[in-house]
């Protein structure tokens, strides 16, 4: 069974939904306090949403120095899967595990509403269960979600297919598709391997069928599918019981 660690920083506030969504997708989940020096042998670590350290200085700038981040860095270096959601994405950028930065929304407002995402890259730890070009709608909730990066970094991300999710028209009546002015409508990116992924939207907030749709659950199903220990080989054909 896939083991997922969800890190809790002081000021995290999405860890409960994130743990619930990961369990709903079939993972064994533990919560890890940010002062822990290791991840307890998890296959995948999630940095959840929230306002770590009150967003002081810059979002994620202080959390990146928490003791657990050294373990996250080691885990990533060893090829382990790392996912940052919203504040977690900001932390991954601040830590240099993903390129670029997340700055104040273009319109200055905190934006809390559904957005429609197009899956631009399949096969990452967050999109293993999607087809290329598929669209789904989940909420965003952030004040500092505008993805920016130098022109050469943006060109590299596009050329290497490292834009994982892009905001597209679809969900939100008369509101613009891009909720924050992110360059190239980028909602999420990955590292060169597709095993470190960060994005602003909150799939964990829409991951229970009782909400009418569990569109976000497939992001967590992807994490499970992408990190499940090698399946036991199925019996060769011909055997009957």
């Amino acid at each position, binding site marked *: 069974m896939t083991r997922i660690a969800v890190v809790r920083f002081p000021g995290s506030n999405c860890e409960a939904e994130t743990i619930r969504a990961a369990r709903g997708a079939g993972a064994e989940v533990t919560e890890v306090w940010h002062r822990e020096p290791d991840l307890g042998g998890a296959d995948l670590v999630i940095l959840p949403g929230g306002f770590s350290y009150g967003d002081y200085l*810059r979002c994620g700038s*202080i959390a990146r120095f928490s003791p657990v981040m050294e373990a996250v860095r080691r885990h990533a270096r060893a090829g382990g899967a790392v996912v940052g959601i919203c504040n977690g994405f900001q932390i991954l950028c601040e830590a240099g595990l993903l390129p670029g930065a997340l*700055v*104040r929304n*273009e319109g200055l407002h905190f934006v809390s509403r559904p957005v429609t995402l197009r899956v631009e890259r399949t096969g990452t730890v967050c999109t293993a269960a999607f087809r290329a070009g598929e669209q789904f709608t989940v909420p965003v909730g952030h004040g500092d979600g505008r993805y*920016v990066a130098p022109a050469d970094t943006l060109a590299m991300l596009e050329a290497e297919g490292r834009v994982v999710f892009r905001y597209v028209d679809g969900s939100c009546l008369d509101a613009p598709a891009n909720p924050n002015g992110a360059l190239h409508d980028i909602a999420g990116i990955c590292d060169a391997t597709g095993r470190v992924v960060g994005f602003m939207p909150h799939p964990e907030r829409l991951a229970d069928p009782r909400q009418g749709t569990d569109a976000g659950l497939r992001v967590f199903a992807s994490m499970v599918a992408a990190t499940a220990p090698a399946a036991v080989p199925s019996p060769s054909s011909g055997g009957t019981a």
Partner: protein
Amino acid sequence: MKYRVHVRVMPRQGLLDPAGQAVEQALAALGFGDASNVHLGKAIEVDVEGASPEQALQRARAMCDRLLANPVTEDYSVEVSAA
């Protein structure tokens, strides 16, 4: 010896600065239509130990590079005075 370091962190020139634009519009609404190119940054003050002002500045720059400024989106300057 202790020195007072004044750090100024500003959004990089050419990057969109919506907060600066909002303040500029508010100034215009108050009759300061001649105010232009408004940018909002941060001022950070910190006492550091150093054998000389140069060494204090060097410490402060290291703080900026690691934490106080984001190299992707911000530029910083440092000045030193007696603490």
